[in-house]
């Protein structure tokens, strides 16, 4: 299943709900496009909901990092990484790089006013 993304707007914060696989050639490009579309609107606070991401490869991991770096004067945070995704983030020590929350409520509250 390739990656599908739906967008929810919570005031200044955009939540991108990801569903599927973030892998080379498809999912990574879908993610890139979705984040770029948000940034083009001028919004800079982004939450990536990873609850329904079933699989990632190194290209998918790299795209998470690339998106984070592209949100230059904003913030991008992760919520709900599932078991496999969380394992990969820990393995690659990216759990120390990204700000990650278990719930949407906590993540929303974490953004500075």
């Amino acid at each position: 299943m390739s990656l599908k993304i739906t967008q929810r707007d919570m005031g200044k914060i955009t939540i991108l709900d990801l569903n599927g696989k973030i892998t080379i050639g498809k999912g990574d490009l879908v993610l890139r496009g979705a984040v770029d579309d948000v940034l083009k609107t001028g919004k800079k606070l982004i939450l990536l909901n990873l609850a329904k991401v079933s699989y990632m490869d190194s290209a998918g991991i790299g795209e998470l990092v690339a998106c984070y770096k592209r949100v230059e004067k904003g913030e991008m945070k992760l919520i709900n990484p599932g078991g496999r995704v969380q394992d990969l983030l820990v393995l690659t020590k990216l759990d120390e790089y990204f700000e990650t929350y278990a719930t949407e409520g906590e993540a929303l509250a974490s953004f500075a006013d």
Partner: protein
Amino acid sequence: MHVEMTLNSKVELTNLVHAVSDEFCRLAGIDEDSMMNLGLALREATVNAMKHGNKLSEHALVKISFHMNATRLLVTIKDQGEGFNYDEDVDPRLPENLDKTSGRGLFLMRTFVDSLQFHHEPGEGMAVKLIKKLPRRDGSRRS
């Protein structure tokens, strides 16, 4: 048990490699986590062959063979490229490397298989051999 595949260098074809790997794992009684990890390692190796070995030239081929016996699954992935210096691989977990957007594929390969070997013959391309030890009949792991 032996399977051979020859692929054009199109990254979407890595799904086939993953599917074959999954089937071998089921036959061997490998647990689901290890199966997914091996599948990921093979995807990474195949993408490396296509992207770095064959420069994503569609007509350049990647040859993949799966060979399973009682104790191990050996997968060989061979491209038609110039090879690379795998000794120069850097650790993506170092703080100075965390914000790099690439460079984790080799690390994942090394992490998820029991043995990883590289062999380059000038004019013959790079062959990467990945070995996964199979569980014993009683379910215990091999050392």
